């Protein structure tokens, strides 16, 4: 059954097909049930913001989408490819998904330029010229064109996170995952990162964003999803979510955070 689904996805992918398809995804850490029957469809160009209390499984869920974590039950299909143990599928899917982490995770022994060109050159086999031109273009886009030759340790947190976004974009992904990209930043640097993300959303990138920035969610999100205890409790448009949320747990969360 799983195979027929994959084939359908690969052959008849159309604009109104979901680019991410999750069905009844379950995951355990030992005895601990982190994800419970999570089902979600994300359309191309959609921006989905994931909210939820700490420890509710938000990070675990988006990390399952590019297989940094393995799910144990259910199905995840990304861009027509199902995530299985097949290493070729995993590699192909990772090429299509960029990820930005809370702690930036830039490579400290490589310059900003090398950080960005590494993926395109080693994975996509681009010539150096092309990779460097792309890197420079992306550095312009995230607003730090003059930092190419520096090392990550010489940049501010906000600049580092923007380099991390450029590094993910350099692979020309179809989907971008953000795991609390602004949580490790000082308040004055949060805006510069959010601005880059807003611009990215407007340019039509499919995005899954875990964040506590409610302003960002209201302004940019097409859909807001609320996680609690490994379950999707409630979802809807930002207007619905922030004004008319039904679920007790959601209301409690919103009352604490707003």
């Amino acid at each position: 059954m799983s195979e027929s689904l994959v084939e359908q996805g690969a052959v008849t992918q159309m604009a109104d097909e979901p680019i991410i398809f999750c069905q009844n995804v379950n995951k355990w850490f030992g005895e601990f049930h982190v994800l419970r029957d999570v089902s979600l469809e994300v359309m191309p160009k959609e921006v989905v913001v994931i909210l939820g209390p700490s420890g509710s499984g938000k990070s675990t869920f988006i990390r399952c989408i590019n297989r940094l974590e393995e799910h144990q039950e259910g199905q995840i299909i990304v861009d027509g490819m199902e995530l299985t143990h097949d290493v070729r599928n995993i590699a192909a899917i990772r090429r299509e998904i960029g990820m930005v982490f809370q702690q930036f995770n830039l490579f400290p022994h490589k310059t900003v330029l090398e950080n960005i060109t590494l993926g395109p050159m080693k994975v996509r086999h681009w010539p150096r010229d092309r990779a460097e031109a792309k890197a420079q273009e992306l550095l312009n886009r995230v607003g730090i064109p003059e930092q190419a030759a520096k090392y990550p340790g010489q940049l501010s947190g906000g600049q580092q996170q923007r380099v991390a976004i450029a590094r993910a974009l350099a692979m020309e992904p179809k989907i971008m995952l953000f795991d609390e990209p602004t949580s490790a930043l000082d308040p004055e640097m949060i805006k510069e990162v959010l601005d880059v993300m807003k611009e990215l959303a407007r340019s039509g990138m499919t995005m899954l964003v875990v964040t506590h920035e409610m302003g960002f969610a209201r302004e940019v999100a097409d859909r807001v999803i609320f996680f609690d205890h490994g379950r999707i409790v409630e979802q809807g448009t930002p207007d619905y979510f922030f004004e008319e949320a039904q679920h007790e747990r959601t209301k409690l969360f919103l009352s604490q955070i707003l």
Partner: protein
Amino acid sequence: MSAISQPSRSIIPAFLRDSRVLQVIGQIIFLILLVLALSQLVAGVNEQLQAKNLTPNFSFLNNPAGFDIGEKPDWYTRDNTYLEAFIVGVTNTLRVVSVGLVATTLLGILFGIFLLSNNWLLRTISRAYVEILRNTPLLVQLFAWYFIVMFSLPQIRDAIAFPQEGRAFIAVRLLLYVVVYFAMRRYVRPFSVDAPRRIALTYGTITTIVAAELAFHFLPESYGDLTNVSFLAYAAVSIVGFVVAWFYLHGNLRWPILGVVGGQFLAGLLFYFGVLPNSGFRLDVYPAIYISIRGFAFPEILPTNRFVAWAVFVTVGLVLAGIMWGYFGRITETTGRVIPRGRYALLAIIGFTVAGWLLVGIEPLPTQVPVDQDGTIVLMPLEEARTQDLLSAEDVRLYSTQPILLTLPQERRNRGGVLTGFNNATQISPEYMALLLGLVIYTSAFIAEIVRAGIQAVPRGQIEAARSIGLSTAQTLNMIVLPQALRVIIPPLTNQYLNLAKNSSLALAIAFADMFQIMTTTMNQSGQSVTGITIIMIGYLTMSLVISLVMNLVNSRFQLVTR
């Protein structure tokens, strides 16, 4: 109006209140005091030594040493000078330290990786290894290696030979198993991409081989006989097992057990249809290593007169490989085309090595050679001279088509047929072996910890970031993990290298003739202790500085730039 208030006036001129000037002045004063103190010390010591007639003097080094050395090259006798004895000692120290550094690094890396293993047994064993070795004194360990391990080796007449002399039988079916294994990997695995079926396949392959071997050993009477009772029982067990596993087992056990019964069935078919060939081929085996209380005898490696010509080929191969590596690397960078440059470079090296070996051997040997027979030079056929053992060492090197001769140790026996020693062997003394093993194993425990800590120092996020931009496991290891781990590993590793080099002076305790032991004897005999200690300190200092220098060069490649 200036808003900056002037400091209050003072009798001390302004430049003397400048912190930069004060720093320089402080350093100059310190230097003057240091020189004064040192010169006082040296003058005082000199006076004392002169009074006792012990002034440092290097001329005694040219006097004959008069003592023999346990571990020495052929040219050394008791008539050689102290200086020459010392050179023998330096050589011995370098032999231990150079081999020791390489071996301890390899062993340390291995155990460092084991310490991080997911396998409980491996992790626990290596943890015990590290804790026992680094928490007992090296001197005690050296005594254990020498007085317990080495002294329990057999007398030379009963030397342990490895491998045992005799015939080896290599069964053809063992080769068949290898073929089966690679065929499975190449042709079957790609079709079964998901984990359960791959697990079944792995278990199946292993079972096929094990079951076929067992059948071969325990049911030989039924080989190739389809009507045999044991075949029918074998088939029944397989089929029942398969049916049970297929219909009644679910969960974790299902696929492994299906693999096992499937493999058993396949093995049974191969066996009973007589597909497994029964034959094999024989090889003559001669011992290459002898171990006894007198030491270790290894095969001798002898470069012949054609060695240089062959070395030229090898060098050309290496240079070519280097050029190709760089050139293909640049092509990949500029065009993005992927070229397996490692494979090409390896091919160049192997190609030139083999071609050189063959080409060098083309020139034929003379059929008649002049040999010295009882004082007169006579011509005789080469083969005859060889069998009569009339060729000198020089001749052996001259009359060989190979660039390198590898000769196995030849047993030397007395009239009674008792083994007394070996010819044509590289001999290693038990003292050298004990010191080497002691130093290598002791230091490897520390290196294992350093390697473990270095790898753990790379944050998990680095690996996740690398995987998320699509790098493979190997690329992640090479480009992200190792460079960052080495940055943490190299400085403490340098310390361990220095420790090994300096600890080699413990050779004294087990009577290995290293430079310290020889210098101790020299000082006892000549009474020149000040000179002796000075020389020995310069010796170890030089060795340590060379190691530090090399390691600092390596280290500078892995420095991080930060704010």
